[in-house]
């Protein structure tokens, strides 16, 4: 709570940025999306664990299990796969919607770098009447640059301990 809220114009600008990013991702405009990322971007999501509150021992899984743990090269590889035209599971397109809410923006120690909290829900329409929905929280670092705001780091937390979709052919 002690974190300091960013100026209103920064808040509004980043809120709009996140909505725009969501629309680009839903539309598979990956090149436009890449233009929103820093070259040193780090994009991660890890598998949630259900543990007892009182169980603080660390002999359990000292290593975090990643769903995503990507640098720019890894992101480019995922996008390259989509572009091969061989990803049969995405043909026909599974209509997808990236629903963003609860955008919060805070200043950080670093000038022109902002901490951004948000929630994302991904809705997908699959074959016929089948639907999938995944909910996740996100904590981002965005840098303000001459060419606009760029994503430096995203840490997402999936709100399920069992993934309820047969693939994650998309980004959060």
């Amino acid at each position, binding site marked *: 709570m002690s974190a300091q809220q960013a100026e209103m114009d920064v808040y509004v600008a980043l809120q709009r940025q996140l909505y725009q990013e969501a629309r680009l991702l839903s539309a598979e405009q990956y090149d436009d999306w890449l233009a929103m990322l820093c070259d040193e971007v780090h994009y991660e999501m890890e*598998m949630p664990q259900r*543990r007892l509150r009182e169980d603080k021992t660390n002999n*359990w899984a000292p*290593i975090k*299990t990643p769903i995503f743990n990507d640098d720019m090269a890894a992101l480019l*590889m995922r996008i390259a796969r989509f572009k091969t035209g061989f990803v049969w599971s995405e043909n026909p397109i599974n209509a997808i919607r990236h629903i963003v809410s609860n955008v919060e923006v805070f200043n950080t120690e670093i000038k022109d770098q902002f901490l951004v909290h948000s929630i994302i829900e991904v809705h997908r329409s699959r074959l016929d009447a089948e639907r999938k929905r995944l909910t996740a929280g996100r904590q981002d670092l965005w840098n303000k640059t001459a060419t606009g705001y760029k994503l430096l780091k995203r840490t997402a937390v999936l709100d399920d301990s069992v993934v309820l979709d047969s693939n994650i052919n998309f980004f959060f």
Partner: protein
Amino acid sequence: MKKLDDLVDFKTGRQKRVIYSDPAIYEEELEKIFGRCWLFLTHESQIKEPGDFIRTFMGEDEVLVVRQKDDSIKAFLNTCTHRGNRLCKADHGNSRKFVCNYHGWSFGFDGKLNGVPLEKEAYNDQLDKSKFGLIEVAQIASYKGLVFATFDETAPSLEDYLGEMKWYLDIWLDAMPEGTELIGTAMKVELPVNWKLPVENVSGDGYHLGWAHAGAMTVSSSMEVGGLAVGNATADNSGAVSVAGMNGHAVLAALDGQSGYGFYPDPKMAVDYLEENRATVIDRLGEYRGKRMWGSQINMTVFPNLQMLPGLNWFRVYHPKGPGKFEMWTWAMVDKEMSDDLKQMILNNVSRTFGPAGLFDNDDGDNLQAITEQSRGWRTRQMDIYTNMAIGGEHSRDEMPGVVSEGLICEQNQRYVYRRWLEMMQADSWADVPSYNNLQEARATEAK
């Protein structure tokens, strides 16, 4: 259930689709297969300290696997013996005791009922606590780090159950002196798919790799894997084998000693590790396994629901949740000797290739789901489907146990997996289940 006879035909590699959708057949599977077979519980490395536990499933039954004070391991149904509440809701952790949330009965992590609130005031000390300990599995045993259990006290020993498969398991479990460990936690995914379909797939389906995974192979393949090519344009079966006939267990193996990392975009670090340690492994496993198999792309299947890919360091178990649903749990398994950096690199790559957002794994779900769905329609469910590739190619090799066919692309293994499925489903007890721990015998049986 003699009617099962016409559901699976070993000779022609035929299956009736109804085995993927019929609720009665599934109920029978829970009893005849998951109620009898040795099922993977956990890796010893996941529960190192006394009180370390993991919550997992045997079929649809929920079990707690707990490391004991004496370093032994016990497995209990995760349910209170009083009114049947779920005992532990955590996925894993460390606990001295398990206290039920409903009335506070307290069980030691050895399963003993230690504390009963108001035992005197309410039970008048008439409750024989020794009769209300947690329900243990019938048998539990480890094979080189892998912990298995069965609900059937008449089941053969784990060693006999694994039989000749042990020769292959050792290529991973016994290659390095300190053995293996699972790192991280399970990546859990629920799929609307019959549980046999992924097992069939990984047991022997090298055929789908080049096509179903063409996109992933295009972007991430770093070296040739057992003669596979993107789009299945060509294939070279000379450098790889399919092996089955081992009590339902099966192996798919390239023989080059490196291709296990062929799906890692940048395998150098892993390949260096292989070559640095190959001498040691040859010492332990001999020339053939040490040179040609250790580090190769290998698919191992332990019937009914455990599969491993040494080399790729991929480890997976399937938990059925109904005729048309299962959960798959995936881990990275590594050699303890590996450096932390290498372990992290491997975990990242296992996740990136076969995790919930894995470049490869994300290609399989829709296909398997579709097969499940297409086994329900009134007309479609009457259709037969086939695993008849390279029938007649089965032979034996002096250098390795099991029934062998050449190449990764060959449906021999699926036929043997379904034969075992039928044997288990038709058997009234373990006494009726044939053992194939001796190859001659096995071949004899096929001859019939």
